[in-house]
């Protein structure tokens, strides 16, 4: 917790003449009221003006609705996954700045969706794709196959090369987190929540879309439910569930949670290759 130490010691150093920083700041908050009454106390104002730029470093910048909209329109684009069904369901595709989770039992098509999205995004030159493989599911042959299929239908025009990462895929995050969850200690949940915060911070500040996969575990009555428990449910922006009918190449995807689409919407799409 070293990061907590430094800023506080900085504050003490500069306002040492006034004594305890908390009392100084409480005087400063009453300053607002005195300003309303018309009694300006110049020394209080100047003192707070000294501390205030330092405090701006300790929290994120203040924004308003208009600035948020501008940032969303300018920086947070939708990355199409290549599967039309999913793209329509998501309102355009994977959103930059958001953490998307795909949940499904084994061989329901999660890795296929990840690989195909990676190939599609890279092929259309939206940016660089980073694929973190934690369960040995990445196959260079499959990717090469997909890229060949996509390139054959591509016009051949090369847009300016983007060197910025726009998509981060972690397949699968549950295999990293489930061994540490459970047990009596709360360190597992601490790691999970911290990982979620770091991923969302990364997504927002660098305009990256983060895609993670999760597996299913048995719940009450034998019904399968997503792994990683209750605390994880409030971490991703978007949660999709994939089911695969055996023997066919049609997958069913439904929304468990989305920021602006209604939950429960489902659609089907065809898995190629």
């Amino acid at each position, binding site marked *: *917790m070293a990061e*907590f130490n430094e800023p506080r010691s900085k504050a003490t150093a500069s306002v040492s003449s006034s004594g305890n920083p908390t009392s100084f700041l409480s005087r400063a908050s009453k300053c*607002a009221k005195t300003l309303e009454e018309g009694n300006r106390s110049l020394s209080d104002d100047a003192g707070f003006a000294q501390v205030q730029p330092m405090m701006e470093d300790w929290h994120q910048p203040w*924004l*308003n*609705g*208009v600035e948020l*909209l501008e940032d969303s329109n300018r920086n947070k684009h939708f990355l199409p996954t290549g599967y039309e069904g999913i793209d329509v369901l998501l309102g355009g595709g994977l959103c930059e700045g958001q953490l998307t989770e795909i949940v499904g039992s084994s061989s329901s098509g999660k890795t296929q969706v990840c690989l195909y999205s990676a190939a599609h995004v890279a092929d259309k030159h939206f940016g660089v794709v980073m694929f973190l493989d934690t369960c040995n599911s990445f196959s260079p042959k499959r990717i090469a196959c997909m890229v060949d299929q996509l390139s054959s239908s591509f016009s051949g025009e090369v847009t300016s090369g983007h060197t910025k990462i726009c998509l981060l895929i972690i397949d699968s995050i549950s295999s990293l987190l489930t061994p540490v969850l459970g047990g009596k200690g709360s360190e597992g949940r601490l790691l999970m929540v911290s990982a979620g915060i770091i991923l969302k911070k990364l997504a927002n500040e660098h305009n990256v879309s983060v895609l993670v996969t999760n597996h299913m575990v048995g719940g*009450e009555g034998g019904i399968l439910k997503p792994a990683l428990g209750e605390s994880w449910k409030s971490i991703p922006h978007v949660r999709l569930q994939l089911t695969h009918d055996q023997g066919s190449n049609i997958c069913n995807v439904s929304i468990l949670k989305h920021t602006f689409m209604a939950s429960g919407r489902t659609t089907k799409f065809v898995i190629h290759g």
Partner: protein
Amino acid sequence: MEENPRGWIHGDETAKAMLARVLTERPFLFLPPLHRVPLRVGNVVEIAGPSPSAKSQILLHAAVHCILPEEWKGIRFGGLERMVMYFDLDCRFDVLRLSQILKHRIMEAYKSANSTYWEDNGEYQKYDATEITQMCFCDDELFLACMRRFLYIRCYSSFEFLAALKAMHFHLQRESEALGVGLHFLMIDSIGAFYWIDRACQPMPIGGSKRKNLSLQNVAEAVVQEICKLLQTQPVLVLATKATIFGAGTSGNDAQRAFGKWCSERKMDSRTLSKEGEKLLYREYMPSAWQSFVTHRVRLQALGL
């Protein structure tokens, strides 16, 4: 100094006069999904529920109700025309959803205004949906004015949250002067977002013995203290969402089996809610400083798809 001792025991005003004064200064608010709950500024409302319940949606609808004006170019919106301060601790806010709700409300007001106008005039003419859209969005001015009244900040840790709370009044003062309206709502999305992180903080002495150690209790006390300070200078309605956490290390099955064991543990304050035969345990995990600060608690349940 009061010369006459009788003056000391005569009241300042009657109860009736006081009620009349308070209810005009701080009228009751009935926010759309919670319209059976009368709320006033100075109340602290905690909205708790499991993950896919509509907690953030309630906040967004309340925010839209606040930032819309009472009336604009002859059309009644019925809003409060005040600022909203939104602390995003979960970092899951989507501005597209807010703008979607705001546009929907504006369009509804336009539609109802147009239909009443034509009914009054003895004719009833239905406008085409596209015409209404065109009418609304050449009025982008209203939309932008409303969005400017929505103030937002993200916090990635409790420390950033506290720093933002301390610096808030200065920022609010600047915004009030710029926009000419005051603050009415303070929204905190997921007050329990840093629970697991703060809980695992080792209380360690920083500097001298006068400084407080960093721990879950102290963070909650500091947050409550800052919000109280704000409530003194500027009365606002505080709305906080809270995600429910079930017992540590149990799944749904274990919760049912361990229910008997939990009742005997004095540490946990668990409440049961029966929902169509299923028993769900909501564990109250926020520190007592926050629990005693909350004046209204709303529990949400998803009824299933």
